[in-house]
């Protein structure tokens, strides 16, 4: 059982992360990708597929749709086996080999570092790219001495390091080439305020700001810098709203709407950093049909500014304790005041 990393092993973690994150944007090697797909089909006992490449997942999906229309007499049969093969046969075996040889805390610490970067991409589609997390994890496991079944390890790694997106069918597989550019922020989050964070050769792209994904239409509105603040506030998802607020000016909006500061409260982190909370009432008018109450506050961990609607109240403590309450359980203003930034609140 491996319970602790040596300093040398720990020092090499960033190298593995860089390598496997880098593979997400590496140019697709069609020869290797085709061989890996055929090997996987063969291992499943399936006939060798024809492998068709597209320049983006979108183009691959369009190809599938067209084939279904053109060849409706010969309906393309799904190959759901591929994913069960990847997951239940290959990955689970590798995982159990890794898990049995690695202390659970170490497992959790290392895995989360790779996972946090690559899962951002995966959530957009049915992407094999996600499995790079595991490939990186297993490669690191192998480096620190975990023993894997070589055949399974090779089959899995060859596939996931060469194929980023596949729509598998019986006898035919549609594959997208890798994106030709992936843009990360300094914090290693998908981020590009000037265009797609993930771009494919045919112009298709995925949009993200500081790791928060946007549909293209909303992204363009947000980054234009001309989106009315009331539209920003109407964005339902609080993470998208918070990102969009960076392109707007909260104070100008409050000034414009004749918002009134009702109360403010400051807490401090153990290092003495102030965390500010402000409660505003924006009177009914052009934007709201009734008086609207908003909290503007900083996140103790990130200092990001949030703006969030609250029920009518007079003080910050009332407003914040209301946010923490539910229909059946009440958190009192005193309980909120007792929360200590970075100790019991972050």
């Amino acid at each position, binding site marked *: 059982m491996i319970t602790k990393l040596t300093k040398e092993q720990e020092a090499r973690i960033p190298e593995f992360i860089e390598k496997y994150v880098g593979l997400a944007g590496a140019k697709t090697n069609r020869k290797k990708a085709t061989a890996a797909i055929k090997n996987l089909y063969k291992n499943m006992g399936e006939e060798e597929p024809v492998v068709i490449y597209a320049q983006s997942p979108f183009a691959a999906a369009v190809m599938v749709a067209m084939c279904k229309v053109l060849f409706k007499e010969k309906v393309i049969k799904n190959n759901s086996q591929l994913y069960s093969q990847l997951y239940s046969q290959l990955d689970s075996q590798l995982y159990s080999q890794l898990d049995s040889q690695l202390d659970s805390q170490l497992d959790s610490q290392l895995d989360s570092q790779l996972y946090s970067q690559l899962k951002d991409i995966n959530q957009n589609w049915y992407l094999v790219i996600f499995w790079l997390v595991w490939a990186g994890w297993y490669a690191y496991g192998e480096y620190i001495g975990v023993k894997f079944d070589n055949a399974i390890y090779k089959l899995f790694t060859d596939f996931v390091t060469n194929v980023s997106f596949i729509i598998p069918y019986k006898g035919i597989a549609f594959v997208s080439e890798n994106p030709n550019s992936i843009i990360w922020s300094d914090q290693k989050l998908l981020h590009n305020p000037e265009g797609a964070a993930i771009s494919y050769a045919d112009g298709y792209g995925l949009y993200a700001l500081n790791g928060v994904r946007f549909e293209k239409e909303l992204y363009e509105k947000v980054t234009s810098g001309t989106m009315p603040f009331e539209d920003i506030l109407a964005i339902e998802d609080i993470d998208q709203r918070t990102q969009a607020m960076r392109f707007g000016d909260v104070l100008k909006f409050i000034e414009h709407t004749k918002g009134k500061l009702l109360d403010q409260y400051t807490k401090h982190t153990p290092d003495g950093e102030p965390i500010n909370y402000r409660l505003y009432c924006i009177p009914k008018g052009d934007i709201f049909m009734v008086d609207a109450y908003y909290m503007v506050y900083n996140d103790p961990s990130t200092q990001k500014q949030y703006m969030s609607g609250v029920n009518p109240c007079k003080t910050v403590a009332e407003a914040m304790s209301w946010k923490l309450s539910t229909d059946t359980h009440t958190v009192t203003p005193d309980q909120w005041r007792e929360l200590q930034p970075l100790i019991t609140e*972050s």
Partner: protein
Amino acid sequence: MIYRHGDVNLIQSELPEGVKEEFTGNSMVIALGEQTGHNHTLVAERPFTAYQKEGVRYLRFDFPTKIQHQEHKELTITPGTYRQDQERETDWFSQTVRKVID
């Protein structure tokens, strides 16, 4: 005792009768952000147990347990039983109250 970790709140409470055990182990994702893919994860050196009753999750920690997230700083939860709540907000356009979505 209350812990506020982003939009997830852990409120110390009694374990109600009739709960069903959901999970026992050392690590559990208790909330997943739809747009960021970020998650609130409990990690402990010794196993803890999660229960469910009527859509509400209760967590029983016999030892200090950490709650982690990609953006929010890690907090250490003292042993006890906690109810997991989601922060709420008012949408003044629709004049409705909803759970914070992230």
